[in-house]
């Protein structure tokens, strides 16, 4: 039975496209990170801190849950 590892998906690429085809560099400058970090985020290789997630969401003028999406089940610790 395949286990579904929880992960955070994001819609940054689509949101950039929706915002006048904003470049990764433009987004990086507005969010206060490097372009490499935006690339890693879009590729799903890096999960941002809560602070960065909110900053990116603010750049797009959208709530954070429209930018980032938690996929998977919450682990049952009880």
């Amino acid at each position, binding site marked *: 039975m395949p286990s579904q590892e929880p*992960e955070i998906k994001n819609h940054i690429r689509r949101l950039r496209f929706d915002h006048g085809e904003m470049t990764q560099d433009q987004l990086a400058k507005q969010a*206060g*990170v*490097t372009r*490499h*970090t935006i690339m*890693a985020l879009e590729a799903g*290789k*890096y*999960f*941002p*801190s809560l*602070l*960065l997630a909110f900053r990116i969401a603010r750049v797009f003028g959208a709530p954070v849950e429209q930018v980032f999406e938690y996929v998977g089940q919450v682990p049952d610790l009880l």
Partner: protein
Amino acid sequence: MSDSEKWAWWTLGVVVLTIAVYGAFVAFVKSGHAALVFGLLALAALPASRRRYFPCRHFDERERAIAIKAALVGFYACWLAFAGLINAIGFIKGWNATLTVPVWTLIETLCWALILVLGVQSLTTLVLYRGGPHA
């Protein structure tokens, strides 16, 4: 390529160069102290003298996370090597043995430890930049 990756490649180059020159020194130059070769390690500080550690240089959270992880792995490797060396000496020479070590040997050992830290740290930096979750 980010500044951190450039630093890692540079440092790795310095480490490889130092090891190669040390090997050549030991193989072909019989006189003198090979430990002098470790002066080449000073080249590793060149990027730092330019802009990597300038106060105005901005590191974002991912770069900081990678730098911290890489430094930890480097020192962890050094600690493992240290524990291995101590145990090897203890088991071979006996735990109550007394060692008389020339100062040059002590200096070389410290330089090899530095090479290990720098090498592992730069390799880890490169690996973390190339992928994996949270990298």
